[in-house]
Each structure stands twice: as C-alpha cells, then as structure tokens.
C-alpha cells in the first residue's frame, strides 16, 4: 500500500508540474463551464420547470450540453491521462529502475490509476461546483435531495471516466509505443460512442425483423448497453431526473414529460444498480488484465 501511495504521489506531482497538464485542465474547465452555461440558457428558454438539476440535463437540441460534455469529453480525459502511463516509462528506461526498488508491479499500476482518478475527481467536482454556483446566481437553489443527486452524478461521472482510464492503462501495458496505445484508445472511444448504438440496432433488426416487437426493442437496448457510454447516460439520466421511474428507450425529450412524482434518491439508485455494477465491473476487468499481463511481461527494452 505504501508503494501504491508513493507512486500515486509522484505521478500527481508530475501532472501538476507540467504545462501540458495545466493547458489540458484549463480546456476542460472552459469546456465544462461553457456546457453549464449553455445548460442555463436552455433552461431559461425551455421554461418547463424550474429545477436545479435541470441545469445539467436541460436541452435545446439532442443532448443536454452538460451531459454531452461528460459523455464525450470525459473518456477523452481518461484516455489522455492513461494512454502512456506504463509504456512511457518503458521507453524512457525508468521502468526497469523503478521495478528494481521494493515495489510490486501492481502497486505501480494502482498508484498511477489512483493519481489519474484524483485528477478526474478534481476536474469533475470542480466544474460541478462552479456550475452550481452559476445556477444559484440565476436563482436555482438546490435542496438537499438535489445536492445529493449532484454528488452521485459526479461520482458516476468519475467512475465512468475511471473506466476509460483503466482501459487506457491496459493499452499502455499492451503496446510498447505510446502512439499505438493512444490511437487504440481513441479508436475504442470512437467505436463505443459513435458506432456501437447503430450497430446494436442493426444486429437487433437482423435477428428480429418485426420493428414493433418489444423483444427487438429490449434486445437492442441490452446490446447497446455493452457500451459504457450508454450505461453511463442511462444511469445519470435517472439520477438527474427524480421523476424517472424506469429505464426504457423513451427519448430524452420525452423524459421531461413523464408525470412528475419524484422518487427519493435511494430508489433512483436502486433503479440503476445493475448499471453501476456493470461500470465497476469494466474497471475491474481492465485491472485484472493489466495485472496478469504486466506481471508476466519482460520489462527489459
């Protein structure tokens, strides 16, 4: 454990010490705040309901700007933090020296992951905090339940991004070149965020030709849930919509018109338990593979 913390501490101060990182951090903050600002704009235009949480899911288009931001840019943050974590050390010949010290190989993986998660948490909760400040200024004061939901939303977002971080770390173990692992990471991201949902409906349509059949709809839905972004989006929509009582393929705009009778937070969480478990499972699988592969790997260059 001390090894893990030592590695994490060093990585964290590494991040905080480079210009590249601060540049990246600034972009994320600007983008996140822009998204929150657009959310407020959407809210003012929509005038359906005045609720604090609506800030994060209010929409003028297809997707709420804030969710669009976490859904699409979150993974990029994860991949950017992890894609070179092990192979960079290999390329710089620091890995062999690092591992000649009394530290387990899994502590190295864990420490790097931990520092990445700390950065992600700092970014997400920082943005959420500032966005909430903006909301309060326009008169949207959250109640306790909404605040709790905001925290759960933040935690789910961190978990989602952590999954991408774990995946990109695995890639950094699998590939010796940092450029290869970066390309692989972004390719997987693109595949799941843009192509997986159409593929899922295509497969469902081929297996069950009747377009009105409920089985086809549920098959399509279950297939699409292989993608972490789908899992994440479904889960956070339930958390951000106290009135949502089921997970089904109703479109986002319809969600806003479900008869309002808000659920307590715990019941909302109950609704998405399996989603949370699945997201955690993805992180664990990436870790398990990382350990297994890294422990057996030749580390000489």
């Amino acid at each position, binding site marked *: 454990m*001390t*090894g893990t913390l*030592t590695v994490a*501490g*060093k990585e964290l101060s*590494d991040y905080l*010490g*480079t210009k590249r990182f601060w540049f990246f951090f600034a972009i994320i903050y600007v983008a996140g705040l822009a998204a929150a600002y657009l959310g407020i704009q959407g809210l003012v235009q929509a005038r359906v309901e005045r609720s604090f949480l609506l800030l994060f899911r209010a929409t003028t288009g297809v997707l709420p700007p804030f969710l669009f931001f976490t859904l699409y840019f979150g993974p990029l943050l994860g991949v950017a933090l992890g894609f070179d974590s092990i192979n960079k*050390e290999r390329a*710089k*010949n*620091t*890995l*062999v*020296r*690092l*591992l*000649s*010290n*009394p*530290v*387990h190989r899994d502590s190295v993986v864990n420490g790097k992951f931990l520092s990445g998660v700390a950065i992600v948490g700092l970014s997400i909760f920082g943005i959420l905090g500032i966005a909430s400040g903006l909301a309060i200024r326009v008169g949207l004061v959250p109640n306790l339940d909404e605040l709790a939901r905001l925290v759960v939303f933040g935690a789910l977002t961190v978990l989602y991004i952590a999954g991408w971080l774990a995946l990109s770390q695995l890639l950094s173990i699998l590939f010796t070149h940092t450029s290869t692992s970066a390309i692989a990471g972004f390719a997987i991201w693109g595949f799941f965020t843009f192509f997986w949902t159409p593929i899922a409906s295509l497969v469902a349509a081929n297996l069950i030709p009747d377009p009105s059949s409920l089985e086809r709809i549920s098959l399509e839905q279950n297939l699409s849930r292989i993608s972490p972004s789908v899992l994440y989006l479904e889960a956070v929509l339930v958390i951000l919509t106290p009135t949502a009582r089921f997970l089904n393929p109703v479109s986002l705009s319809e969600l806003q018109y479900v008869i309002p009778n808000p659920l307590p937070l715990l019941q909302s969480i109950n609704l998405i338990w399996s989603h949370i478990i699945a997201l955690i499972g993805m992180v664990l699988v990436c870790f398990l593979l990382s350990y297994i592969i890294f422990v057996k790997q*030749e*580390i*000489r*260059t």
Partner: protein
Amino acid sequence: MKPAIQTFDLTKKYGDLVAVDSLNLEVQQGEIYGFLGPNGAGKTTTILMLLGLTEPTSGRLSVLGFNPLREPLKLKRLVGYLPENLGFYDDMTARQNLLYTARLNGISMVDAEDRIRKLLEDVGLSDAVDKKVSTFSKGMKQRLGMADVLLKDPKLMLLDEPTTGIDPEGVRHILNLIVESREKGKTVLLSSHLLYQVQKVCDRVGIFVKGRLIASGSIQHLGKEVIAGDKYVVEAEVPDATPALEEIIGRVEGVVKVSRSGSTLTIECRSDIRGKVAKAIVSSGYTLTQIRSHEYALDEIYSRYFEGESKS
C-alpha cells in the same frame, strides 16, 4: 559464510536463442566480481534474473538467501541495481529523482535529504543537484545512477557497465566508491567491457561467451591457466641486452624459453628462478635494472580466450 549469489544450471531462452546456458555461478559475500564477455553474451540477462526482473527458463538461484521470484520485495530492499540503459525522470531534478527512490525504499525524508546531498557530492554532481535530469550529459546520468544505487545502502550491488560514458576523473571516483563499498562488507557484481578497470577493482572475474561462463577466477589464476599453463614467467629489464645474453639465459637450468623486445626480456621457466637468472645476467657483465614475475593483464587473458575460441 553463505555465498551472496548462487546459481544452479540457470538457463534463459528467448525462443530458440539460449541467452544464458546452464550457469553455475558463485559470488562470495564481500567480493567484487566482474562479468566480461562480448556483446550479447548474456551478462545483462543474468543480472536481470538475479534481481527477479526476468524469469529464468530453468535452473535455480539464490541471492542473499532469497529466491528472487518468490520474495522479490525482500530481495529488492537489499539489492542496488544500476541498469545498462539507465533512465531517469527527465522533468524532475537529480534530487527529486533520488527522493523518489528514497520513498520507494522507505527511507525517512529527513535521512534521505542528508544522504542525497552527500552522495551527489561523492559522485561529483554537487553542482547539478537541482538541475533537471533532461539537461544532464550521459556521464552525469551515469553518476546519478551510481548515487541512486548507493542511496539504499544495499548489501549487494549489481552494476551493469557502471563506467561507460564517464570521464577518467569520474571513473576514478566511481571505482573508488566501488572499492569502498567492498570495505564496508558489500558484495559487488559488475559487468564491463573496460578490461583495465575490471582488472583494477575486481577480486574475481567470469568470462561469458554465448551464454556460457567459460572461465571464472582471479586474474592471476586465469592468467596462469590460459597463458602460461604450468610455466612461470619472469621479466627482466636489461638496457644493454644483446642476442648473446638471450643464449646465456637460455642455458640457465629451468629456463624453457627466452624472448626479447628492446631492453625487456621475457623468460619462461619451470619455477620461480629469478635469483638464478639475475645472477647469470649480472655475472656476464650486463646491467640488470629490474627483475619481476610477470603480471597478467586482463586484456591479454581475454584475447587469448578468443583466440582459442576462433581456432576451435
């Protein structure tokens, strides 16, 4: 006392290539052992296996009483390793790099700061303590590597080509540090291509060829074995030497062969008969300025081994 390093038929294969072939090595505690051998002979592979960084294909080994694969952390607390391709974190200063090593080894920060300052002085980097390693020359990195190894105060040091890229003054520093370590009871295993340096500090050397350890022992021992067989070699300095003198010495009882280059006579004999040879020279009216038994030079031994190799 148990040997610091013991291997039994240690073998490492990379596919069809046998990088290390049934190695049986014993390094005693408190000695400096030198690995010699051409590129690709298996020196680095052996060192990596000793540290548990590379898994042997077969064979057993014990390092400081530990099995490197079973108890890697216990072993790594006691072993300092200087890799052949040495890398540091470029964005960090020399001091920060060493502090990280100190933390990984559980050295308290107060101790670490003091020790780092002293070590960087010892390796001649006191001016570069707070410079980023990205600005370091190859030799400066190598010196920092030596400080990195010594920082953990290891019982065993595995140094893969410790002096490559270092200037002569720095080499002297490093070799001194290595010899001092022995005086503190540490064991050192080093690999090098610089025979003269190896000869200067190593108690025993091992010669690797194609994964096999073809010779192991002190330099005197190897010299006798390889070059002289059971002969004894004497060198005499005679400024006014002539071919006639060679004949005179050749007639001395016990002398096998005499050769001369300039004023130096090399005399192979069956035993140490320096007295008789000196008497013969002086009594024939020549000036003898020096007579000594021949010191084998490692490069001589080394090249003899490879002459033998290419013939067979």
